[in-house]
């Protein structure tokens, strides 16, 4: 599984990344987590409110820090 956390690097984006890491660990799935902070890259996803989470090319959430329960849901689905 390929997880991307999009965000220029403010406190909220860092929090989103932390939650995804914790969720991956808890779910015990094999996944890579990458932080994307380049504006051009972020824009290519069509995302313009950050933080956003993309899993295997699919946008899961934009403009907010996901809750851990939400994150676990995406990993299970």
């Amino acid at each position, binding site marked *: 599984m390929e997880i991307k956390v999009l965000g220029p*690097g403010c406190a909220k984006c860092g929090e989103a990344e932390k939650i995804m890491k914790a969720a991956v660990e808890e779910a015990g799935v094999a996944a890579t987590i990458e932080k994307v902070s380049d*504006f051009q890259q972020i*824009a*290519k996803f069509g*995302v313009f*409110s*950050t933080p956003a989470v993309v899993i295997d090319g699919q*946008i899961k*959430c934009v*403009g907010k820090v996901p809750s851990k329960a939400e994150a676990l849901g995406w990993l299970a689905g």
Partner: protein
Amino acid sequence: MQPDTPENTHSAPPLANPTKIRYLLTGLAGLGLWFAIYRQLAPFSRFFTYQLLGINPESHLGEAIEFFVYDTPKVLMLLVLVVYAVGVLRSFFTPERTRKILAGRRESTGNVLAALLGIVTPFCSCSAVPLFIGFVTAGVPLGVTFSFLISAPMINEIALVLLYGLLGWKVATLYLGTGLLIAIVAGWTIGRLKMEHHIEDWVREMHANASDVPDQRLTWTERFGLGKTAVREIVGKVWIYVVLGIAVGAGIHGYVPEGFMASIMGKGAWWSVPAAVLVGIPMYSNAAGIVPVVEALLGKGAALGTVLAFMMAVIALSLPETVILRKVLKPRLIAVFLGVVGTGIMLVGYLFNIII
């Protein structure tokens, strides 16, 4: 706010009736309690300072303590109420929805709408650049995009609450009205200047690829939850600045002589408005810290226009934001942005100094 009519039940599933009534009752009871406590604050601060502590009512110390004991809980209570309400209100708006509303709008109406939406659309200041790209590539005119980007930080619910709590509704309304006006006119002006080619090339070459993010459907329970989260996040972060700001304000209130600021920031000093704006631009502070200081300055003879101009420059224009915007804007457009907004703030400053 959207009423809970049958028409929009498809977007927010109706609550079961008993739950709805429970929410309503809890809300009313909470509000009643809030007002009951709020009204006791002034008598309590006098009782606390002069009876409990036994300080001489004529003394500087007494004045400073009464100010602090009254204003701290008052401002914090106002803050909790407004941040909660705004948090719930913002759950009805997303940057995606705002973009849809603004895309393809003509200027003028577009500028007005953008400035209004700037107040209610939730967005974190570090999203300014992605948002700019998202708006421009979706066909939102440049000037309309700027109206949004100016109004979003300039009209800040925390500043509004503090101004209302410390200086009254007139000053709060003036701030809201002129803030909107600056966002509308400055955005419109930037649009007139036809500066589209001063956007960085890679942004212009980018095609709008609308992401298929499903519209979130929220229940009322979730919306109230968002209000609570907003209170926890915002009030949890700014309360310390509010208390420090009020403490500084209390010090100035009690000890700095009346009329002290009149010579530097008074109406007579014409140069004080541009100076206030120039000093304010590189300063970056949140509204919570700056307003109590503003109040104290006013109390000591600084002119309202000068002080408002200073405050607006501090919260609306900031060096870090400008540096980030450089990634998508060429220097000329950044200079125009700072110039137009700075001039607008200055005009507002002079206007108030003349009429009040």
